[in-house]
C-alpha cells in the first residue's frame, strides 16, 4: 500500500526529462516554469510522504515496493522509506525545487547568465539529477542503489562541464574520474557481499546483521564500500575533487552538490556499510574516526588560509563531513543520530551558503575575498546579514541546525560503542572540539573580511568624485525577490531544526537503533 508514492517520486522528474527529449521545441517558451512545475510536483509528493508517514510505529520500512526486476540475477526493484531516508528525500526535493525557483525568476535579469545558454538541456539535466538523487535514497537493493548512485554522476558532470566557470573542463573531468574510480571499488565490495550472502536485498542483509560473512570478508567489504562512499562524502584525503568542482560549478550545481550529493556518501554508511557489515564496521571504525577528525581539522585549517569564498565553503564541507563520519565511527545510536542530523543540517546550511556565494559572485564577478574588499553590510545589508546568518549556522551555534549534529557526534565519541578503544575516541573528541573552534575562526574571519569594514569603492570615489554616477550605475543591488524566495525556506528550516531538534531526532532514532542492532 502507498508504494506508489516512491515510484511517483521517481517517475515525475523522469517524465519531465523525457518529455523534453521527445518534444524539444514544444516547451521552449516556458522552460523555467516547466522545471518549476515538475520539481514542484516532486516536492509535493515528498511532502505527502512526510504527511502520510507513520511516525509512531516500530522501526521498519514504510511505503515499500518490491517487484522483480531482473529475475535471472535475483535483482529486484525494491524501494522504501524510513526515518533515515525520509529527511534526505524531502531535502533533495526541496533543494531541487529551490534551485528551479532561483533559475526561473533569476533568468530574466541575468542576461548572459548560464540559464540563457542551453536552457532546455539545463532543465533536462537537473531533472535527471533529481531522479538519481531521490532514487539513491529510496533504493533498498544493493545494485539498484549502485545504479542510482552512478546515474547522478552524469548530469552533475555536464552541469559542471557545460555551465561551469573558466576551469570547468578540468574540474568536471576530475570530478567524474575520481568518483567513478571510487564507485568501482564500491561495486567490488557490493559484489563481495552478494557473493557471500547470495542476496542483494538491503532489508534482508540488515536483518541478518552480517550473519553468513566471516569477519575478514566483512572487513574487506567494508573497506571497499567505505572507500567508494568516502570519495563521495568526501573524506580526507579523498577530497581534492570537491574544491575544484565547487569552485567551477554554477550556483545550482554547487547547491545540489553540497546539499545532496555529499549526503549520498554518508547515507550509504548508514544504510549499507554499517548495518550490513557490523563486524567490519567495528574493525574499521577507529580508522574511520581518525580520518574523520583529521578531515575536521584539516578542512578548517585549509579554510582559514583560503582566499576564494566558494573554495572556502567547499573546504568547510570537508570539515563538516568529518563530523558526520566521526558520528558514524562511534557506532552508537547517539553518534549515528548526530551524523544523520549533521547531514541534513549541512545540506540546508551549505546549500544556503552556496546560494549566497553564487549571489556574491554574480554581483562582484569574483569570489576572491581580497577582491571583494569589505563592507558588504554597508553596501548590501541584506546579503551581508544573510551571509552572517548562514556562517553562524555553519559554525555550529546552538539554536541553529548546525549545532546538534556536531554536538551529538562528539557526545558519541565520548562514549563509543563497546569494543571500540575509548581512549582513542576521547582523543578524537578533543580534536573534533578544537576543530569546532577553528571552524568558528575561519567563518568569523571571512565575515570580518567580507561584511565588515568600509566598502571599497566609497574610498575610491572620494579620490575621483566625478565618477560617482558611474559607480552608482554599477552598484550591485541587494537581495532580490526571487533570491529571497529561494533562500527563505532554508533559513526557516535552519531555525526550526535548531530550536526544535526533536523533530528530526525522533524520526531517526528508532531506525538507527534497529540498524545498530548487532552493535549496541
Amino acid at each position, binding site marked *: 500500500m502507498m508504494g506508489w508514492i516512491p515510484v511517483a517520486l521517481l517517475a515525475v522528474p523522469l517524465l519531465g526529462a523525457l518529455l523534453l527529449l521527445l518534444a524539444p521545441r514544444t516547451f521552449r517558451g516556458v522552460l523555467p516554469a516547466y522545471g518549476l512545475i515538475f520539481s514542484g510536483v516532486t516536492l509535493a509528493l515528498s511532502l505527502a510522504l512526510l504527511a502520510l508517514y507513520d511516525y509512531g510505529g516500530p522501526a521498519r520500512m514504510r511505503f515499500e515496493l518490491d517487484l522483480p526486476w531482473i529475475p535471472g540475477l535475483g535483482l529486484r526493484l525494491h524501494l522504501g522509506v524510513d526515518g533515515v531516508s525520509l529527511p534526505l528525500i524531502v531535502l533533495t526535493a526541496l533543494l531541487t525545487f529551490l534551485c528551479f525557483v532561483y533559475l526561473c525568476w533569476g533568468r530574466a535579469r541575468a542576461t548572459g547568465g548560464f540559464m540563457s545558454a542551453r536552457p532546455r538541456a539545463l532543465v533536462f539535466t537537473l531533472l535527471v539529477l533529481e531522479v538519481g538523487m531521490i532514487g539513491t535514497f529510496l533504493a533498498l537493493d544493493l545494485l539498484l542503489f549502485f545504479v542510482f548512485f552512478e546515474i547522478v554522476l552524469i548530469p552533475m558532470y555536464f552541469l559542471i562541464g557545460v555551465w561551469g566557470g573558466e576551469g570547468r573542463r578540468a574540474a568536471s573531468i576530475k570530478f567524474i574520474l575520481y568518483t567513478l574510480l571510487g564507485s568501482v571499488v564500491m561495486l567490488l565490495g557490493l559484489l563481495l557481499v552478494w557473493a557471500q550472502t547470495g542476496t542483494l536485498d538491503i532489508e534482508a542483509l540488515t536483518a541478518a546483521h552480517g550473519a553468513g560473512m566471516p569477519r575478514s570478508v566483512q572487513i574487506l567489504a567494508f573497506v571497499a564500500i567505505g572507500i567508494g562512499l568516502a570519495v563521495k562524502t568526501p573524506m580526507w584525503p579523498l577530497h581534492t575533487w570537491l574544491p575544484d568542482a565547487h569552485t567551477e560549478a554554477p550556483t545550482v550545481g554547487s547547491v545540489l552538490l553540497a546539499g545532496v550529493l555529499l549526503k549520498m556518501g554518508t547515507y550509504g554508511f548508514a544504510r549499507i556499510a554499517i548495518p550490513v557489515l557490523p563486524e567490519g564496521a567495528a574493525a574499521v571504525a577507529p580508522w574511520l574516526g581518525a580520518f574523520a577528525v583529521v578531515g575536521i581539522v584539516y578542512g578548517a*585549517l585549509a*579554510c582559514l588560509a583560503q582566499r576564494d569564498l566558494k573554495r572556502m565553503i567547499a573546504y568547510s564541507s570537508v570539515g563538516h563531513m568529518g563530523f558526520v563520519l566521526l558520528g558514524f565511527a562511534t557506532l552508537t545510536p547517539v553518534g549515528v543520530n548526530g551524523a544523520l542530523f549533521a547531514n541534513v543540517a549541512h545540506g540546508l546550511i551549505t546549500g544556503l551558503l552556496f546560494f549566497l556565494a553564487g549571489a556574491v559572485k554574480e554581483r562582484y564577478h569574483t569570489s576572491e575575498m*581580497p577582491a571583494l574588499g569589505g563592507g558588504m553590510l554597508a553596501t548590501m545589508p541584506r546579503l551581508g546579514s544573510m551571509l552572517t546568518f548562514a556562517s553562524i549556522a555553519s559554525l555550529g551555534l546552538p539554536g541553529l541546525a548546525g549545532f546538534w549534529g556536531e554536538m551529538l557526534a562528539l557526545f558519541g565519541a565520548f562514549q563509543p560503542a563497546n569494543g571500540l578503544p575509548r581512549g582513542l575516541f576521547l582523543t578524537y573528541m578533543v580534536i573534533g572540539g578544537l576543530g569546532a573552534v577553528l571552524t568558528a575562526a575561519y567563518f568569523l574571519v571571512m565575515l570580518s573580511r567580507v561584511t565588515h*569594514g568600509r566598502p*571599497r569603492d566609497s574610498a575610491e570615489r572620494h579620490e575621483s568624485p566625478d565618477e560617482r554616477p558611474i559607480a552608482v550605475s554599477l552598484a550591485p543591488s541587494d537581495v532580490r525577490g526571487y533570491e529571497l524566495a529561494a533562500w527563505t525556506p532554508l533559513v526557516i528550516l535552519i531555525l526550526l531544526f535548531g530550536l526544535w531538534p526533536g523533530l528530526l531526532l525522533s524520526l531517526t532514532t528508532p531506525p538507527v537503533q534497529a540498524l545498530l542492532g548487532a552493535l549496541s
Partner: protein
Amino acid sequence: MTTFPLLAVLLPFIAACAGLLLSRLPHNNTRTSGRIDLPHDSTATSGRTSLPHDSTATSGRIDLPHDSTATSGRTSLPHDSTATSGRIDLPHDSTATSGRTSLPRNSTPTYGRDKAHTRAAWIAILPTAAAAILTIWLAWKPGLAYFSGTATPPTGQTYGTIVTGGLPISLTLQADALSSVIGVLVTLVALAVQVYSVGYLEDDPRYPSYSAFISLFTSAMLLVVYAGDLLVLYVGWEIMGLCSYLLIGHWWEDRGNSRAAVKAFLVTRLGDVGFLFGIFVLGTAAGSFRVSEVLARVPEMSAATLVTATMLLLAGVAGKSAQVPLHTWLPDAMAGPTPISALIHAATMVAAGIFIVARLFPAFAAARPTLDVLAVIAALGMLGAALAALAQDDLKRVLAYSTVSQLAYMAGGLAAGSDTAAVFHLLTHGAFKALLFLCAGAVIHHVGSNLMTQMGGLRRELPVTFVTMTIGFAALMGIPPASGFFSKDGVLLAMDGALSSGGLTDAAAFFLYGCALATVAVTGAYATRAWLRTFFGEARAVALPEPEPGTAHVVDVREAPRTMLVPVILLAAPALLLGFAGEPHVELGVAAVSVLLAALGAGAVYAFWRLDPVADPARLLGPLRAPCERAFYVDTLYAALFVRPVLALARLVVRTDDVVVDGAVRGSGKSARGLSGMLRLAQNGNVQLYVSGVLAGVLLIAVGAVVFT
C-alpha cells in the same frame, strides 16, 4: 506561575525576532538600490549630538589576518589616532574627508529613521519590562532565601524531552532560589540598558538591530539562568556569546572593532568546548543532563570524574567570565557601545561563569583540586587585572580590567567555599558596575573620547553623573555603606575562613587571601585615580574647531538626555543600598582591614595627584607601569604562541593540499596517461611485430610449462 520562566525567556526572544524582521522596513520605502548618495545635508542639518565612538587602544591585540586584505589600496585609518586628538569620532569620519560620506545608511531621511527608532525602542523595552515583572514575581516568594540557605521548591515545568539515542535532553525551565535572584538582576539591568540606549544611540542608523540583539541576549541569559538541563543551558550560553560578538562589532566599519568581536567569540568558544565536554562527563556520570539529577548523584561520583568534569567546566567559566588565562578578550570587547559593556561585559554575561559554578557548587565543592586551581586563577586574575586597571588611560578599559578583577573576587569566594558570598558580590557588582559603565557612557558622550587625558573637571558640568558615579566608585572600593562594602566583606570573610578550614590547600588559601587583600588596596587606588582624573582638576576637553558640514557635530548638551539619566539614577539606588538587603553580618576585624587598605591605596593616589593634578597618578607604579599598561604582555604572548602558528599551519595545509594530496591525484592521472602512452608504442599497426609478440608469448609459455612440470 509555572510558565513564568518560559514566558520570561520567550518574550525577549519574540521581541528580538520582531525587531530584526522589522529593522529594515523603513529602508524599503526610501531606497531602491543598494547605494544611492543622497545629499548629505539631510543628516547634517539634523544638528544632533553625535555618537561617541568608543575607540579602544589596539595595543597588544591579537593580529587576525584581516590585515592582508587591507593591502589593496584601502584606507582603513586606525581610530585611535583620531580619538586622541579629542575629536568626536563618528565611525565613518575617516573616509569622509571630503566632507561627504557615502554609506547608504545616511541615505535614509531622518524622519524615517526616527519612526523606525521609536518603533524599535518600544519593541525592545516593553517585552523586557514584562520579563522583568515576571522575574520579580518569580523572585517574590523565595526572596533572598538563597543567602539564608532555606530551600524552596523550584517553580517551573518540563516541556518535553528530546530523544538523542543516548541520554535525552529535557526541556526544563524552572526558577529556584538562586536563579530567581539572578533573573531579576538580568532583566532589571537589561531594562535599564535598553532605556539608556534609546538616548545613547539616538543617531545610530543601526539602533533597531542593536536593540533586537540586546533582546536576544536577554532571552539567552534568562535561558541560562532558568535552564533545568545542562544542554539547554549550553544553548543559552553560546547564544549569549553570539550576541556579545554581534554587539562588540556593532560599529563594524572599523576593522579594529571587528577584530575585537572575533577575538571575544573565539576565546570564549575555546573555553566553551571544554565546558561542553565537562557537561558530557557530568551527564554521563549522572545518567542525565538534568541539573537536579546531576547534583543528586554527585555523592556517588568518583573523585576522578568530579575533578575532570569540574576542571573542564572551569575552562568554560574562565572563558565566559574572563578569568586567567582566557581573560584577554574582555578589555578589547570595550570596542562595543558602552551600554553593551554595561550589560554584557560587566553585569550579566561575564557573571554567568560565576553563576554556573554556584549552580553546580556541590560538584565543585567535592573536587578539591579544582578549587585549588580556581583559587590560584582567581588570585592571579584579581591582582593582575587590578594593576592593569591602574595603568590604563582609557576609562572603559579601566572598568574592563576592574570587571576582570571583581569577577576574580567572586571566583575566589567560590574557591574559598562560600557560594553565597560570591553570588551576593555578583549581585552588588552587577548593580554598581552597570552603574559605573552607564555613567562612563554619559561622560564619554559628553567629552567625545574614552581617554581620561581628555577628561577632567567634569563634576561641574555633569553633576548628576558625578554623584552617581561617585556612588559606583565607592561601592567598587568597598567604602561603607555602599553595597560593595558588604559583599566584598563577605568574600574576604570566606577567604579568611578558608585559611583555617575548608576545601583549599593551605598554600592556595594563603595565596588567595594575600592577593585579595592586596587587590583591595589596588582597587582603592585605581578607582580613586579614575574618579579624580575624570571629575576633578582642570577641564581638559579642548573645544573643537567648527566642524566641516556633515562630518562631526559638537556636543552641546550639558547633561546627558533624560533617557540616559533615569536608568543611571535608578541603578544608583541598589548600588548604594543593596548591601543592607542580605542581612549584613559584618566582622569588624576583616571590615576594618579592608577599609584601611582601600583608604591606603586611595590615599597614595590622592597624594600623587595632589603633587601634580595634570600628570597621571599611575606613575606611582614606577617601572611596573609599562607592563601593567600592556596587561603583562599576555596578548603578545598568545599571538606568538597560538595565533601565528595556527595561521602558519593553515597556509602549510593549503600548500600541502595542493602539492601533496592533490598532487598525488594529478600525478596518478599523469602516470596513467604516461603508461598508456608507452602501451601505445606497441600498438603501431605493424603486423610483423604483433606476430612476433604472439610467438614470443607461445615460446614463453612452452618454456614455462617445461620448466615447471
